[in-house]
């Protein structure tokens, strides 16, 4: 499966890029995080504190257990600070 993976705010800065295309068999968000974290220290650093990471699957706020089947876009970001 091919996913567009987006990063925002300090997660984007820590990983060093705003988006990338990822070819993966990850079944859930948790699987995808584990797979990315295993790649390089900068990914591991970005995902080191799961409580500080929020995720959207196809632009809908989701959580670490969310399945990725059929998904096209996954975004990782810190808690939102709008308003």
């Amino acid at each position, binding site marked *: 499966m091919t996913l567009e993976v987006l990063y*925002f*705010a*300090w997660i984007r800065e820590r990983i060093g890029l705003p988006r990338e295309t990822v070819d993966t068999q990850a079944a859930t968000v948790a699987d995808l995080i584990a797979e990315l974290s295993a790649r390089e220290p900068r990914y591991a650093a970005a995902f080191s504190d799961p409580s500080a990471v929020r995720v*959207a699957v196809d*632009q*809908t706020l989701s959580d670490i257990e969310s399945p990725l089947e059929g998904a096209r876009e996954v*975004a990782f970001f*810190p808690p939102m*600070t*709008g308003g």
Partner: protein
Amino acid sequence: MTVRVQTAPFDAGAELTRFSAGAAAGGAGAVVSFTGIVRDLTPAPLLRLEIEHYPGMTERALGDIRDRACARWSLSGALIIHRHGTLMPQDPIMMVATAAPHRAAAFAAADFLMDYLKSRAPFWKKEVTATGTAWVSGKPEDEAALGRWD
């Protein structure tokens, strides 16, 4: 029922005048507005605030927040404007306005919109000072505040 996401500054007063005229013509008796303003609270003077957002999801989230408010209260109108990009101290960051036949609904809906905007709209703020930059932390109580509306 307008939602706008923009880099350009806006004039909250001019927006309120336009919104209120439409609301009054639509039978509203009560209009509430909220404006959020960039404050200079950093240890070193704040040079600017940079707001990042998630294009696509932002519009979707704001539209969803507005729809929830409209489903919950009988509103004559609702307005959300949120800036992104570079903002200066004392600039308006965002505003919401609500109009309803009675004031209780207008107040509650504006409060609700703000609670949802704070932790459900994908914006992130970074403070830039002469001595460095820092991302503004989301407050756990902002996410917890949504429990008020369950």
